[in-house]
């Protein structure tokens, strides 16, 4: 019945047998790896059954629990889909049955009555009552609104019509099951992760553009899956990467072909396209294989979209004419870097101070930043070396792995003062030297300027600092958390010429 999705044959036969004969009132389909494919298969099966001759007419609705973020949206989408009703914008987007002034979307009871009404409406033309079977598919059921979970699982017994609820989810039922046995246990389907061969078959079957290139595409997909399958089993992700790489992969072949066509333009130009030779194929593979894993790196976490990536990594024209070289792959730069490196100097110091305040424990401040009167300048203090080992106890996890801790504004300003005193004093214009007699007095003045507070607020709005205390809290100093990471702090320190390693309490 369904040939486009290899690997689903067992599921398809069992599922369609159940739906077309006597479905259990509640089914649960769990697929952790390729939920989109599974939903497509379910759609296929049900669409096929809609038209199939059978004892009962089937009508089905599919609702996405993420899209239906309120109960009303869920009710409306299910009832409209069951009644094959599409709200029209021109008519004011009325729901099904709204013309007789009845609303099915206000409460769960209304929804249940609506289901019965749909059931009666669909069964009107039929000879026998109860000839209609409703199938309600809820995908990503783990995201359902909690109070709807139990009634939906009991929908068949509440509505008392021939109805089957199918949940499709990435999470196992045991983890989302409502407590106290509120829901009856479903009939389970566990979809195994797709195998590499099935994905390859599936992706190749989707190819439809240019028949002579199909062998090359087959080869390309096989290689791509060899490289990328260990990292993700989702056919959609692999197809996305393939879509980004294929234009570049096939371009040299097309270039070569175009040139050949130009050369013998006088002869019959409608001549069949020559598929590339085995040797060309090998060369292409060698050229492009390294870029496949880089494509995975950039595209799987969506650091870049497929179109941009394909554009940035387009091979040079007539690649096959050149002697074999390695293709350069453009790695997307982290855009956040650019924003931070162009910040003013004071902001960078504040970020650095906040990072230190978030990473070091408060009790270490005096030991790291404290300076006696006699050693007013640049006393380098080594970081405390290795973390103290406690015998038999649990080893402590480095703070940088646990995430930033929050600090009070005052503490951060004090650290800022220490940093400025050691690293910034020399760069100041020695204009008002006479006004300040005590060492560090000028820095003290600097850190209490309004500009410092303004910058803190600005950085917070840029989400480079995170405010952890409520904005309207008046008592006590406000608290913050650093949102820059270790790498970013290192980079900032380098620019400011601060030896950051000296200021860490733990070894980084």
């Amino acid at each position: 019945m369904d040939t486009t999705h290899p690997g689903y044959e067992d599921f398809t036969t069992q599922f369609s047998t159940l739906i077309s004969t006597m479905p259990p009132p509640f089914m649960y389909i769990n697929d952790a790896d390729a939920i989109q494919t599974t939903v497509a298969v379910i759609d296929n099966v049900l669409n096929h059954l809609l038209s199939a001759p059978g004892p009962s007419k089937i009508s089905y609705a599919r609702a996405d629990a993420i899209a239906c973020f309120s109960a009303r949206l869920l009710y409306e989408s299910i009832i409209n889909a069951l009644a094959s009703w599409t709200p029209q914008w021109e008519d004011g987007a009325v729901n099904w049955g709204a013309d007789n002034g009845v609303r099915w979307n206000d409460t769960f009871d209304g929804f249940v009555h609506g289901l019965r009404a749909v059931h009666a409406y669909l069964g009107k033309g039929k000879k026998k009552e109860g000839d209609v079977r409703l199938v309600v598919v809820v995908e990503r059921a783990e995201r359902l609104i909690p109070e709807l979970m139990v009634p939906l699982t009991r929908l068949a017994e509440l509505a008392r019509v021939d109805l089957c609820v199918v949940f499709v989810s990435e999470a196992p039922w045991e983890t989302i099951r409502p407590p106290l046995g509120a829901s009856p246990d479903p009939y389970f389907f566990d979809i195994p992760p797709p195998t590499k061969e099935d994905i390859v078959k599936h992706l190749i079957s989707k190819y439809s553009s240019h028949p002579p290139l199909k062998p090359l595409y087959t080869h390309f997909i096989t290689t791509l899956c060899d490289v990328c399958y260990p990292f993700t089993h989702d056919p959609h992700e692999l197809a996305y990467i393939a879509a980004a790489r294929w234009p570049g992969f096939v371009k040299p072949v097309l270039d070569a072909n175009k040139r050949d066509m130009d050369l013998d333009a006088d002869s019959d130009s409608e001549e069949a396209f020559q598929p590339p030779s085995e040797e060309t194929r090998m060369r292409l593979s060698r050229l492009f294989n390294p870029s496949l894993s880089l494509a995975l790196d950039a595209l799987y976490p969506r650091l870049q979209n497929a179109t941009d990536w394909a554009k940035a990594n387009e091979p040079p024209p007539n690649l096959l004419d050149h002697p074999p070289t390695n293709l350069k792959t453009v790695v997307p730069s982290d855009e956040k870097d650019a924003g931070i490196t162009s910040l003013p100097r004071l902001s960078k110091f504040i970020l650095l101070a906040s990072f230190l305040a978030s990473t070091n424990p408060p009790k270490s401040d005096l030991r790291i930043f404290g300076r006696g009167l006699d050693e007013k300048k640049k006393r380098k203090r080594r970081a405390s070396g290795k973390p103290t080992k406690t015998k038999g106890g649990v080893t402590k996890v480095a703070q940088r792995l646990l995430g930033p801790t929050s600090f009070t504004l005052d503490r951060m300003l004090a650290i800022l003062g220490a940093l400025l005193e050691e690293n910034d004093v020399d760069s100041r214009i020695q204009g008002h030297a006479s006004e300040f007699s005590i060492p560090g007095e000028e820095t003290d003045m600097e850190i209490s300027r309004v500009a410092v507070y303004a910058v803190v607020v600005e950085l917070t709005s840029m989400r480079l600092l995170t405010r952890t205390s409520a904005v309207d809290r008046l008592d006590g100093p406000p608290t913050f958390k650093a949102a820059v990471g270790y790498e970013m702090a290192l980079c900032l320190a380098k620019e400011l010429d601060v030896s950051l390693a000296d200021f860490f309490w733990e070894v980084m």
Partner: protein
Amino acid sequence: MPPKRTSPQKKASQSLPIHLNHCINSQKRAILASIHHPQPLVEKEHDTNVLAAQQITSLLEGSVIRGEGNSCLLLGPRASGKSKLLDSCLEKLQTKPIVIRLSGWAQRNDRLALREIAIQLSQQTGTTFLSANDPTEEEIENEEDANPFLDQDPIQHATGSTAVLPPASHLPALISVIPTLAHPTVIILDAFDLFALHPRQSLLYCLLDTVQSCHAGQGRKGLAVIGVTSRVDTVQLLEKRVKSRFSGRTIRTGPPTTFTHWLGTVETLLLPHVRHDPDDDVDNQWKDAWAASIDRFLADKAVEEILNETFSITRDFRTLVRLLTALVVQLTPSNPFPLASQLQSAAMTQRARPRFPFLSSLSYPSMCLLIASVHSETAGHPLFTFEMLHDLFRAQVRSSTLAPVQINGGSIGMAFETLVTARIFICASPTSSNGAKGYLKYRSAVERDDVKKAVEKAGQVNMKKWLTKAQ
């Protein structure tokens, strides 16, 4: 269970003549139908459910025929046939009463429940559910006229023209009207214990008060309130004033008590009555073959063991239904008769489910993160952040060559998210919008042994070595 035991059956099930192919589909359909609408077995006289049926029937007859007010609690474990019993008793009644069905799962508060009562009443009694000469109705109507704002009540708009409802404030008065209706009424409260959890139990109070004050004669019709629940201490949940109005009658249902009864159920479910043409050779041939195969199937030691296990763990009829459904949908023309191995696999997916069945086929980065989480736990940190796992992973890659190495790029972060959506890693700290994602605390839902098995099954030597380092 050793698969060897199934071998004597194999030769019988190998092939099916082509002319019998259509029979298997009708057989499957018949079995699935019989599973969903099971015919009651010929039960013994003193069976709990038979007694319960008698009691319920007499109670209903009291209300429907003699106009009494009755209340009772139908108590029994899940899937012991409470609702089914009630339905069959209602069907057998001579005069059809008005049946109002409420469920604690759907009607989460008294307001919704009253609305639902009103809607169901008006559906079953026609356009108006209040008889014409009833003073209450006039009162309501007068008030409605007097107060134009009540027309704006959303409830009226919601239910629309087919069912004109009184305003919300008058809904409680509705219950006292019920005995004055033209027909006797049966109110079924499914998940009765949940109604008892509603604040002040006002709905239960109203209902039971009406039941208590409902006297036969005076031209009034009977009213029966039947609570259905599986919670044993439901009566203790009732407030004193509610409890004193409740009759205290508890009717119990129960699951089958003997294994032979259980086996008998299986046999009747698998051998449903299929309409046969007695003269049709093909049908007869098939019928005999099927009956013989079921005999063989049930005589198999392995089958009996699985069924016995199921009976010992749970006497839940629905579990049995799922088992048999999974067994029946596996039948194909090439493999037409049920096998013990099929029942075994059905039991694996439907009854004693492994928590994460496909752990061994996780993607490579996910598996690495799983091993890292085991390391983290051995080091005394059952709660971990993504950064901790990533750090462990990097350290491992640095110290040994863990094939296919991929540190840069986000595939490991994506793998972490996959594990989180599959609920293998469970968030252990409140999610906040301002905290960085990599520092949220998680714990692993997978036991160490399961990880070990999965890694062994995946068969990557490097990962196995890394895992064994966690002692």
